[in-house]
């Protein structure tokens, strides 16, 4: 494995908070996926804008 630089302090609890946030967001994604599937079942899907396209940055 490569040597990684811990030259910045990630902050106490920064690891834990990311675990918690990812878990909460995961629950959201779960419900959104179900909602999207239901929507897709009843009608067409909306086209999502490409987030990497700088033209979409306002």
């Amino acid at each position, binding site marked *: *494995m*490569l*040597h*990684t*630089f*811990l*030259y*910045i302090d*990630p*902050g*106490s*609890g*920064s*690891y*834990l*908070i*990311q*675990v*918690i*946030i*990812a878990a*909460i*967001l*995961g629950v*959201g*994604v779960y419900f959104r996926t179900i909602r999207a599937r239901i929507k897709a079942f009843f009608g067409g899907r909306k086209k999502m804008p490409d*987030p*990497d396209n*700088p033209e979409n*940055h*306002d």
Partner: protein
Amino acid sequence: MTNVQQHPASFRDPAGFVFEYGGTFYRQVNQVYAQHYELLNTSGLYDALVKEKKLLPHTELDKNITGAPQWYKTLLPEQLPFISQPWEWCFGQWKDAALLTLGLVRQSMAKGMILKDATPFNIQFTGSRPVFIDSLSFEAYDATQPWIAYRQFTECFLAPLLLARYRSQELTGLFQLYPEGIPLALVAKLLPFKSRFNLNVFLHIHLPARMAAKQHSDAANAKKTAFTQQKLASIIDSLESLVRSLQLPASATTWNNYYEETVLSKTYVEEKMAVVSAWLHQYPAQRVLDIGTNTGLFAEAAAATGAFTIAVDADADCINRLYNTCRQKKIKHLLPLRIDITNPSPATGWNNAERSAFLQRASADITLALALVHHLAIGRNIGFGQLANVFHAISPYLIIEFVPKTDPKVALLLQNRKDIFDHYNEAAFVQAFSEKYNVLERTALPDSGRVLFLMNRKT
């Protein structure tokens, strides 16, 4: 080597440092970073980011200029015309800088790398585009780990943006007090109660602030739980959708409608533009500084001549509007910055040398000081001699407008105060500036009593 000057802000990261040699800036890559540096190239990440103009391009040199034993490579980056400090940015610039950083994290992850830090100091604006300048910020990505720079991102980008969105754009300046990041406990205290009802603000600000206060003892246990790339991607998405959703409340400032106001006639503006443009073409400049730029009308004219133009104003809303205009019109060479010329950014950081003062960076070929003198001389009690001294240090040429006491704008400045400005007149103005400058041209502007001067500094 004796002529190598290490940049005073480039000493924290062991991966390498920036130095100046013979008037050019270089970046040294140290051996300890070699594998990450090679991965940046072999993964194709460098090429992709440079192609999209997200990363400052560099040329690799195999010459050890510094003579340091830990040397691995020397990089010659594309030289930047100007270094701005984050506390000089408007809301739009902060937002674009934050989105660029998150975009880089996402693109890096796709190529097996990640950003090891997330500070606004890694970003500069070349005109109205943000570009990432620290090519040593990328490191190999370990998908079982969360993002090491997560907290730094929230404190350095989210905090100023949210304070601007919920309280006042001026509060981005708090970053100058906390250049390592605004503590989340302070941010949570400053944000209004309603901000807690935004899920993303709650997750990234209020929740961590509360957890830090409670000093969780199970933080060590959490390390046993494996993190995944998918989890990190969801955090990046959440941060990105939060930043993207941030908008300033609409507002009209004192100066926003300056040129649209009836008091200044169309003939006046047209004639002023004709004279200023003619002078700008007569004395071609590489760099122009427009002080008190307002709507940026004349800064745009300067940029149109091909000069790199720095347009400053004390009014954050003006600068934000100008920045958005530049983005929409895709104007190159024009950099709007929020700077109050009566209180320009000081030198800050370690040894007072990490971030240099604005006037140290502000050299130009031509300075524009249009419809400005009365604000400084009457509004701020700064004498003509003082003005001449400061402008003299910036550029060899000066285009300056004198606004007489009979002008309605001056009357507005004097309406609530005693007129102590007996010596505020054109003759005294010319006399004071003649100490430092040769007056090359004088043109009276129609319908206003205002006068434009072109001056050349005495050496």
